[in-house]
Every structure is written in structure tokens, then in C-alpha cells.
């Protein structure tokens, strides 16, 4: 279906568009992913895997020998040709696009809490610089740093505005899957969003330990936060959100 506006009345009409009917390459999107947050596709004719996050934009090329081939239109793997089995196309690929503006994340620094006990990490006391993260009507507790040392080591990110990039690849499952023993709702834990700052080694991610990252402590609500971020794209398709960090950390180094 396509839309049009009647010039005289301004009324919006919807008619079957013959151009769209014959367009062999409409844009499609990754609309479903695995519990790790990624869809594994096959690169070209090879057996190499290309992981894609939800709402990655695709252009269908062709279908042959039971596989459908797509060109990736945005994100870190933009321009590559990947394929899925025809069966999986029906399950994982759809027409729902991301919101075409970046999400707005507001993080406000709170207390420094020494001795925060992490059940998921064996009852360890962790010294957390806490903050509150708000996005899309959600409000969750985050830690902005846990491991401390000299000033050139990990520190909470300075107040300011940062761009949050589209995730590039699944992070090591061994680093976060143990949290699932403590939260039945936890999934998409291998999706880490890089924050554009310095060498881009800070992320928005789930867990109990922050190396200067924005780490969502609320394991049960990570999948909601993840969806609130991954369902947005900047116009150029490289980022998902703007991160506004406000206030002042009680412990800065």
C-alpha cells in the first residue's frame, strides 16, 4: 500500500501503488532476534557468520536454493551481502522499521555506595557510583564505575552529552550469562551499546560491574531498556541515542 495527498482537499488517501507492487527490493528489517539479542546470518556464499541487531535495515536481493540474500543497508556491516534460509526469513525478517530519531537517555548521578552486595557475583561487596537512567518512560538504577585505581584507570564518565552507537558485535557470553541465574527475565545481555567517547570502550550494558560504563543493575528490566534503545536510529543509521549525563559523581576517581 502507498499513501498520497489529494492536492485540493489535503485529504490523505491510500491506494494500491503499481510502482510498489513491482518494486522487487523493498526495505525490510530484522524484527526478531535470539535471546542473546542477535540474528546470525551467513555472509554471501561462505559459511562465515554476520551478526545483526534488531531493526537492521535490509534490501532483499534474491532467493535461490532455499536461501534469501539481502544487502545490509545500515549499521557496522553496511554494504555486506548476507543470507538466511527461506524459513528463517519468515520468522525473523519483517517490515517494522526503527523510529527514525535517536532515543534520549538521561543519566543523573546519585550516591557513591561502598559495599553494594552483588548476589550474582558470589556475594561480593562492590563500591558503586550510582546513577539513575531514564529512557522512554523507564527509570532504572545504573552504576557508572565499580573498579577504582589511579586517575588514569576507570572513572565515571564526565557530565555531558554523548552519542550512543549501534552495537557492532555480540559481546562475550561468558561475561554476562551467569546473571541469568539471578534473573529469569534477562535476555539480550550480549548487546552492548558503545558510547562515543575517547576510544569508545565505554558502553551502555547490563551487569553489576562498571569499568566507567553505564551499567544497568536492574537485570529484570534490561530487555526493556535494550528495546528502548535498539528501536531507534539516527538519520545516518550509525547511532541509537543521545546520552545526557547530568549531575556530579560523589566519587570521581
Amino acid at each position: 500500500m502507498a499513501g498520497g495527498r489529494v492536492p485540493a482537499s489535503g485529504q490523505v488517501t491510500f491506494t494500491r501503488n503499481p510502482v510498489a507492487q513491482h518494486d522487487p527490493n523493498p526495505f525490510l528489517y530484522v524484527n526478531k532476534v535470539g535471546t542473546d539479542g542477535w540474528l546470525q546470518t551467513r555472509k554471501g556464499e561462505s559459511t562465515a557468520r554476520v551478526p545483526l541487531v534488531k531493526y537492521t535495515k535490509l534490501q532483499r536481493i534474491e532467493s535461490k536454493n532455499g536461501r534469501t540474500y539481502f544487502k545490509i543497508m545500515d549499521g557496522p556491516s553496511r554494504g555486506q551481502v548476507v543470507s538466511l534460509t527461506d524459513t528463517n526469513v519468515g520468522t525473523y525478517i519483517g517490515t517494522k522499521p526503527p523510529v527514525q530519531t535517536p532515543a534520549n537517555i538521561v543519566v543523573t548521578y546519585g550516591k557513591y555506595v561502598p559495599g553494594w552486595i552483588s548476589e550474582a557475583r558470589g556475594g561480593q561487596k562492590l563500591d558503586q557510583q550510582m546513577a539513575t537512567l531514564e529512557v522512554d518512560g523507564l527509570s532504572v538504577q545504573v552504576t557508572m564505575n565499580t573498579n577504582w585505581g589511579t586517575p588514569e584507570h576507570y572513572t565515571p564518565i564526565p557530565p555531558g552529552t554523548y552519542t550512543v552507537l549501534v552495537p557492532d558485535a555480540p559481546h562475550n557470553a561468558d561475561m554476562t550469562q551467569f546473571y541469568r541465574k539471578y534473573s529469569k527475565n534477562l535476555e539480550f545481555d550480549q548487546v552492548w551499546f558503545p558510547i562515543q567517547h575517547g576510544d569508545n570502550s565505554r558502553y551502555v550494558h547490563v551487569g553489576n560491574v562498571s569499568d566507567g560504563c553505564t551499567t544497568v543493575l536492574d537485570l529484570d528490566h534490561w530487555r526493556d531498556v535494550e528495546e528502548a534503545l535498539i528501536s531507534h536510529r539516527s538519520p545516518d543509521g550509525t547511532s541509537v541515542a543521545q546520552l545526557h549525563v547530568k549531575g556530579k559523581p560523589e566519587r570521581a576517581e
Partner: protein
Amino acid sequence: MFIIACILFAGSAGMPIVRASGQTESPDTRRILDHIAANRSKQTPAGRAAARRLNSDGDRAYRRHHYGAAFTAYMNSYPNAPNAYAYIMAGDSHWRDIAQPRIQPSSQTPAQTLPSCRLDNHYFAHDLALDVAQNQAVGLALAAHDDMHGPDGHNPDMHNNALRVIDPLFYKRAQESTACLQAMAQHYETEPPTSCVDLERLRKCLGPPLIK
């Protein structure tokens, strides 16, 4: 068996416990040991495999003297499956990372770069004491326990040796380093927050790398 130590796995809150090895077991160490004992039934083969992979990752980074990366790997190993090696190596690599001399970027003049005091005592005594209590001290207690009972407390033949500390020299070195770090933390508890931490003393406590 390479060590005979007083293993007190019954709960005992409050005062530190002095072990037969001469090391002090703090309430923080005890709390973690109790937590590990209470959650042994939750361990899975997948968790143990993940812990082994991360220990290998940690070893690779440690041998390249990339102690920050080594610390990250080891500290994510033990939540998958508590193991003495990861606890000991996490604590060791974290403080090795902090004590490691920094290379000055060539584009900066000396006046712009490292301050005369890289680390003051504002948080140091607390950070070091808590870290050693929750890492090396836990690892040493687990190593002694594993040596007598196996890593899951009942059958030493069932599991991969990669999750066990079986090298007496490694254990002895880790024990000496831990005692030295505990003494250093105690010393700095009596120093003013503004005093500068002697990183050379920290390096001497750690000694040469624990693995080559």
C-alpha cells in the same frame, strides 16, 4: 596434598579468624566462602566451561602484561564457577595494573602528564583491604579446600585441573603476596587520606608475575 590448613567453613560472623596458615580471614572473606558453599548446587558444566575459557583469556593477557584485560577475564570467571585460581589472579592482576608504571605519551610534556602523586590514600586502604579479602584471601581458602576435597567439595577426580590450584610454589607466592598486601592496607589505614601511596611498595608486595 600441598597444604594442611585450618579450613573453617562453618559460618562465623564478626571478628576475623586467624587461620593455621597465619593469614587472617575477614568477615568479607567468610561471607563469600559461605555464599560459595551455599550455592555449589547451582554450578553447571556450562558455567565451569565458561570459567575455564575466561581463565585462559586471563592468562593470555597476563603473560602479555595486559593486566587490566587479565583482571576483567579473571573477575568474570568466578561468577560462572567459583575457582581458586580466578580469585587469586583477579586480585593480583588488578593491583598489578594499578602499580604498573605508565608510559608517558610522547606528545605531552612531563608537566602535563602524571602528577607527582599518582595515588593518594583517600580510598586506597579501604580498596586494597576489601579487594584482597574478596579475591586473594577467598582464592587461598578455596585452594586449600579444593586440595583436600576437590573443587566442588566431594570428588577431586571429576573436574578439569584448570579450575584447581595445584602448584605449591604458586600457592606459596600468592600467600606471601597476600600477607604483604594485607599489611600494607593496615599501614595505610593509619595514614592521613592525603598521604601518597608508595607504589614501589605495592610492586614489591606483588613481586614477579605469578605465571610466566
